[in-house]
């Protein structure tokens, strides 16, 4: 057990915290706290990426880490906070299934993710290969959050959290994607959040609510 170096221990710790935050987001009932948790997840992802960069000396990972900090820990939460304030969203988000059931489903997803990732991570030779299972679990938990939540804004947070998981998977399996791809994704996520923000206003103007099940009534006529 002592064969695991200290930096890898820190990376594992950060990955575990990211998983913990993913579960906290799944259990969170309030929108503003949800966004704060998302910001915290981004900050942990930044620390994790920075540790990988310091350990492996891969120059482009510093860029990714900086991008993560600026985009996911500061800019996106700020945009979401502004949206919530402008849309005047208050109170609790209503999940479609109750929270204990969601958490149990989440636990099953984590077990599946860990099992699926185990043979893959044995093929990888990176220092961070153990965290691949966690990355996969975070992606699946974010999926679950998007499926089980009714409000549009929580679905967007789920989408962004899924991107966090994918980013963690990329760093843990292959030390990150090429810079061009990463910049592209970052820009996509940012633009996506802004466009969805505009959509929120449209949805609310149309239905007087951000509950997306109203959109099922839309017809082509």
């Amino acid at each position, binding site marked *: *057990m*002592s*064969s*695991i170096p*200290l930096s890898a*221990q*820190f990376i*594992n*710790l950060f*990955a*575990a*915290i990211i*998983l*913990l935050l993913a*579960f906290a987001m799944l*259990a969170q009932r309030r929108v503003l706290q949800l966004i704060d948790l998302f910001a915290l997840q981004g900050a942990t992802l930044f620390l994790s990426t920075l540790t990988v960069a310091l350990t492996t000396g891969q120059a482009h990972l510093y860029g990714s880490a900086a991008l993560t900090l600026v985009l996911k820990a500061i800019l996106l939460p700020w945009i979401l906070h502004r949206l919530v304030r402008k849309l005047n969203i208050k109170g609790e988000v209503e999940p479609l299934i109750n*929270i*204990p059931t969601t*958490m*149990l489903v*989440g*636990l099953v997803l*984590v*077990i599946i993710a*860990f099992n699926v990732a*185990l043979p893959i*991570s*044995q093929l990888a030779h990176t220092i961070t*290969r*153990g*965290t691949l*299972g*966690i990355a996969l679990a975070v992606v699946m938990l974010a999926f679950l959050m998007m499926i089980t939540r009714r409000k549009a804004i929580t679905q967007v947070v789920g989408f962004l959290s899924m991107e966090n998981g994918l980013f963690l998977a990329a760093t843990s399996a292959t030390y990150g994607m090429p810079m061009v791809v990463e910049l592209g994704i970052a820009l996509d996520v940012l633009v996506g959040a802004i466009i969805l923000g505009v959509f929120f206003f449209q949805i609310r103007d149309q239905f007087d609510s951000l509950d997306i099940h109203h959109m099922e009534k839309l017809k082509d006529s």
Partner: protein
Amino acid sequence: MISISGLIGQLFAIALALALAPLLSGWVGMCRAWLQSRTAPPLWQPYYMLHKLFHKDVVLAEGASSLFRVAPFVMFGCMVLACAIVPSLSTDLPFAPAADALALVGVFGLARIFIALAAMDIGTSFGTLGGRREMLIGFLAEPALLMVIFTVAMIAQSTSVATIVETLAHRDFYIHPSLAFAGVAFTFVSLAENARVPVDNPATHLELTMIHEAMILEYSGRHLALIEWAASLKLYAYSCLGLAFFFPWGIAAGDSFPALLAAIPLLVLKLAIGGVLLAGIETINAKLRIFRAPEFLGTAFLLAVLGLLVRLLLETKL
């Protein structure tokens, strides 16, 4: 086999637990009062309470069976045993082989069953209500506590509390992400088990919300004193268990006298910090509805299982 110095250390640990436990409860009460900008009761308030109650006569409810009279003594005995098993100062405890961590959960369970039965024994509606709620909380908290113990036991390869602490305290520095999960889960469980705010309020006598208080409503005199003392011993035992699992540094390994002496101020310091944190948690949280308690403890169970999984994934060699 039992050395004299070990026996002295053990007896000293029990005496310290008996003396410090009301002090810990008093300290938490003081911090709570300060945080809520009230004038704090003196630190010695629990001792005054115990003194007063021990000098009062016992009033027994009509139709109370002998179970009602025995329950406080059983509860007190269980808590003293728990305090004797959990290493607070030293891991050299001659009584420790009496029960490992799993049996410790059983000891807490025994105390709970007796107090719940005694509450139902007198047949008032409040007693029954409190007993049922207590069993609900207990039945949800125990699996979570067991999962936390499994996680820690897997790291130490043993379920004996003394061995676990020895392994955790005297090894090379190593970060266990699974302990982070287990720590959060353990905090949840101890809040629920000790009738603390998100689940129960130790200071309330509001009929609809009380759990622990509803059970002991009919007790008076020395019986009530024993129950109050046992409740603070339980808080002390849980705090020591948490400190032993997650902050084991400073607990003496052998029975050397200087190490034992050095462990005392450290223990008091750790307990004081823990008390401040507990008061903080109790101040910033509102009491949950009773039907939210299963969700709260379900989360604790989930976190403990996650800790176990993370332990399997990250900390064993691939």
